[in-house]
C-alpha cells in the first residue's frame, strides 16, 4: 500500500492528459472550505445537511466532489455560490475562502458582483438552465454587460468569442437561437460559454454530463480539460460518477452524508482509497464481466433529519469500531496529498500522522 512520502508523479495521474507543470501543492489555494456547517429547516424538522465540510482547491486544478445523491455535493456548491437563501437555510459556522476572502461574510450585493465574474457555475440540466423565452445572445449579453462596461456590440463580440472557446461555431444561428432549438450538448456548451464569458477563474460544474448521452459526455469532459489547460480555469466538478471523476480530475474529494470522508490525488483516492466508503463505492462499479452481479452498499443513505452520531457511515461500515458511533473521526494524513477521516484506518494504520 502506497502511503508514504512519495507522491504519485503528475504525469501518471489518471486523466491528467499530459498536463504537468510542477507539484500541485506549491500552487496557491484558490478556494478553501473550512468546517462549513449548514442546516435546513423543513416541515419535518432540521436537516443537518453539511456537517463541517473542509477541502481546498488549488489554482488550475480540477477537484471532483463525488458521492451518492443527497450527500450534500450540490448543497456545497450552492453554498459556495451563495445561492442558498431563504429563511429555512441556516449557516452554522465555518468559512469559505475564495482568493483569501471569506464568501460567507459577503453581502448579497457583493456576491452578485462575484458571481459570473469570479465564480461561475453550470448546472446539471442544460434544458432547464436556459431561459426558454430569450435568445442565447440576449441571455449571454446580459451577463457580460452586468460585469463589464462594454457596449452592446462589444459584449456581443465577447459572447461570440466565448462560444467559440466552448466549441460552438461562432455563427449567428446559435446566437439568435432559442434554447429549445439547440441539442442538449449544445445547450450545455452554451451554459459553459456563459459561465466563462467573463473569464471567471473558478468554474463549479454540478453534474455537467449527467443529463447528456454518453458520446456527448466524453466531448464535454474533453472540453473541461481543455478549459483547464488553455484557459487556466480551476474547476470544482460535482459528480456521482466515479468514471467521470477519474477521467476529468486532478484531485478527488469523497463526500458522505454531509461529511468529506476522503480527499487526495485522483489516483490515490480512486485506486488506492483508504476509507471503507470509498472502497465500497469502487466495489459497486460494474467490472465489465457479464457474470459479476452489481454490488451494492448494504443499508441506505442516512436520514439527515437524525443523522447517525460519530462517523455518519458507521451503521453501514463493515470495519466499524466502538468509537465510530461516538466520535467524529478527524482527518488523517495518509499520504503526501491524501487524507482520510476514519477511526478504523487510524487504528490499523501503520505510518500515519495526524494532519
Amino acid at each position, binding site marked *: 500500500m502506497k502511503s508514504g512520502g512519495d507522491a504519485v508523479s503528475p504525469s501518471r495521474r489518471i486523466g491528467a492528459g499530459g498536463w504537468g507543470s510542477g507539484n500541485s501543492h506549491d500552487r496557491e489555494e484558490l478556494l478553501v472550505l473550512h468546517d462549513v456547517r449548514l442546516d435546513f429547516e423543513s416541515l419535518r424538522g432540521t436537516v443537518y445537511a453539511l456537517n463541517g465540510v473542509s477541502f481546498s482547491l488549488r489554482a488550475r486544478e480540477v477537484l471532483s466532489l463525488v458521492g451518492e445523491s443527497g450527500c450534500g455535493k450540490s448543497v456545497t456548491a450552492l453554498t459556495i455560490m451563495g445561492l442558498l437563501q431563504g429563511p429555512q437555510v441556516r449557516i452554522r459556522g465555518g468559512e469559505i475562502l475564495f482568493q483569501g476572502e471569506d464568501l460567507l461574510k459577503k453581502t448579497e450585493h457583493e456576491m452578485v458582483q462575484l*458571481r459570473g465574474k469570479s465564480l461561475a457555475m453550470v448546472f446539471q440540466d442544460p434544458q432547464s*438552465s*436556459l*431561459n426558454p423565452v430569450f435568445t442565447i445572445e440576449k441571455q449571454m449579453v*446580459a451577463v457580460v454587460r452586468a460585469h463589464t462596461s462594454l457596449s452592446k456590440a462589444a459584449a456581443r463580440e465577447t459572447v461570440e468569442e466565448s462560444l467559440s472557446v466552448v466549441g460552438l461555431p461562432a455563427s449567428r444561428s446559435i446566437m439568435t437561437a432559442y434554447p429549445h432549438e439547440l441539442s442538449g450538448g449544445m445547450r450545455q456548451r452554451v*451554459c459553459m460559454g456563459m459561465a466563462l464569458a467573463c473569464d471567471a477563474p473558478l468554474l463549479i460544474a454540478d453534474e455537467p454530463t449527467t443529463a447528456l448521452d454518453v458520446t456527448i459526455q466524453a466531448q464535454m469532459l474533453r472540453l473541461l480539460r481543455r478549459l483547464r489547460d488553455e484557459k487556466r480555469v480551476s474547476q470544482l466538478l460535482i459528480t456521482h460518477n466515479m468514471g467521470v471523476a477519474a477521467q476529468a480530475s486532478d484531485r478527488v474529494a469523497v463526500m458522505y452524508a454531509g461529511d468529506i470522508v476522503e480527499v487526495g490525488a485522483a489516483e490515490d483516492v480512486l485506486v488506492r482509497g483508504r476509507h471503507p466508503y470509498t472502497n465500497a463505492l469502487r466495489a459497486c462499479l460494474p467490472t465489465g464481466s457479464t457474470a459479476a452481479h452489481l454490488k451494492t452498499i448494504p443499508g441506505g443513505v442516512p436520514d439527515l433529519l437524525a443523522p447517525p452520531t460519530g462517523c455518519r457511515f458507521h451503521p453501514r461500515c463493515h470495519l466499524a469500531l466502538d468509537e465510530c458511533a461516538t466520535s467524529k473521526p478527524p482527518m488523517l494524513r495518509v499520504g503526501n496529498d491524501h487524507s482520510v477521516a476514519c477511526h478504523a484506518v487510524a487504528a490499523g494504520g501503520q505510518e500515519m500522522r495526524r494532519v
Partner: protein
Amino acid sequence: MSVSTYVARRLLLLFLVLFGIATITFFVARVIPSDPAATYVGGLARKDQIETAREKLGLNEPLPVQFGIYLRDLLTGDWGTSLVSKRPVLEDIAHFLPVSFQLVFLAMAVASVVGFILGALSAAKKGSVIDHGSRLAAVVGVSLPAFVIALLLQVLFCHVVPLFPIAGKIQVAVADQYPIRTITGMDLLDALLTANWSAFASVLYYAVLPVLAVAAYPAGVIQRMTRATLTETLELEYVRMHRAMGLSRSSIVSRFAMKNALGPVITTIGTTFAAALVGAFLVEIVFSYPGIGSYLVSGIMAMDYPVIVGTTLVVSAIYVCVNLLVDLCIAWLDHRVILQ
C-alpha cells in the same frame, strides 16, 4: 398546426357559439307565454292591430319555420328592429357598443398596469409590508363586485368628497360648445383625432369613476396571477442560472422573469375581459353611462326581445374574438407554444 388553420378552427367555434346562443334564446323566448307582438304594438292595442303585428313579425308560422327564417335573417344581417326604439338593432348596437368598448378598454388598461406592477412588487419583495398591502388590495378588488364598488365610489367621491360627476359621459355644456365629430364612435378617440381637447378632458373626467369601478376586479385578479407566476418563475432552474451568472434579483425580475410570467398574465387579462364586460354593463347602469349595458337593461325592462338577443350575440362574439387574440398573443410571445 399552422396559424391559419388554428384561426379557422377557432372561428368555427365562434360560429358554433353564436348558433348555440341564437338557438337557446330563440326557443326560450318562444316557449314562454309572452306575446312579442303585443309588446311591439304597445300597451293599449286593439286585437286586430296585434294580429297584423303577428303577421308582420312572422309569428303565425310553425316554430321550425320561424327558426329557419330567424337564422336566415341573422345571417343576412337583418337582426330585427328594436320593439321600443323601432330602429334596427344592429344600428343601435353600433351606436352604443363603442361607448362600452371605450370604458372596458380604459379599465383593462388601468387594471393591467396596476395589477401587473402590484403583482411584480409583491413577488419581488415577498413577505414585506409592500407584499401584504398589495395582496390585501387585490383581495378587496376581487371581492368587490363592480356594481358594488361603483355605488361605493359614488358615495365617496360624489357625496363625501364631491370630486367627480355622478352620472353621464360628458358635461352637457362642453358637448354643446365642442361637439365631438363621430369617427369611431369612441368619444375619447374621436376627440383625440379631431384635437378637440375640451371634450377630451371632459370625457376623461366623466370616465374616471366608471373606469375605476370596472378595473377593480381585473386588477385584483391580474395582481394575484402576476404574483403567483412570478414567484413560481423565480424558483425555476434558469432563474438560478441567471443568478449564478451574477444578475441581481431585481434585474432578473425586470429583464427576464417578467417575460416568462407574461403568458399566464395575458391569459388572465383575456379571461377577466369577460368579467370586465359584464361588470361594465352594471357600472353603466349605476353611472347612467350610455353604453351597450344600459341599452341591454332597458331592453330587458321592456321585454325588447331583438335587443336582448342581438346584444348577447354581439358581446359573445367579441368575447370569443378577444380570447382568440389572447391565445395568438401567447403563441407569439412564447415560441414553444403549439397551437391546438
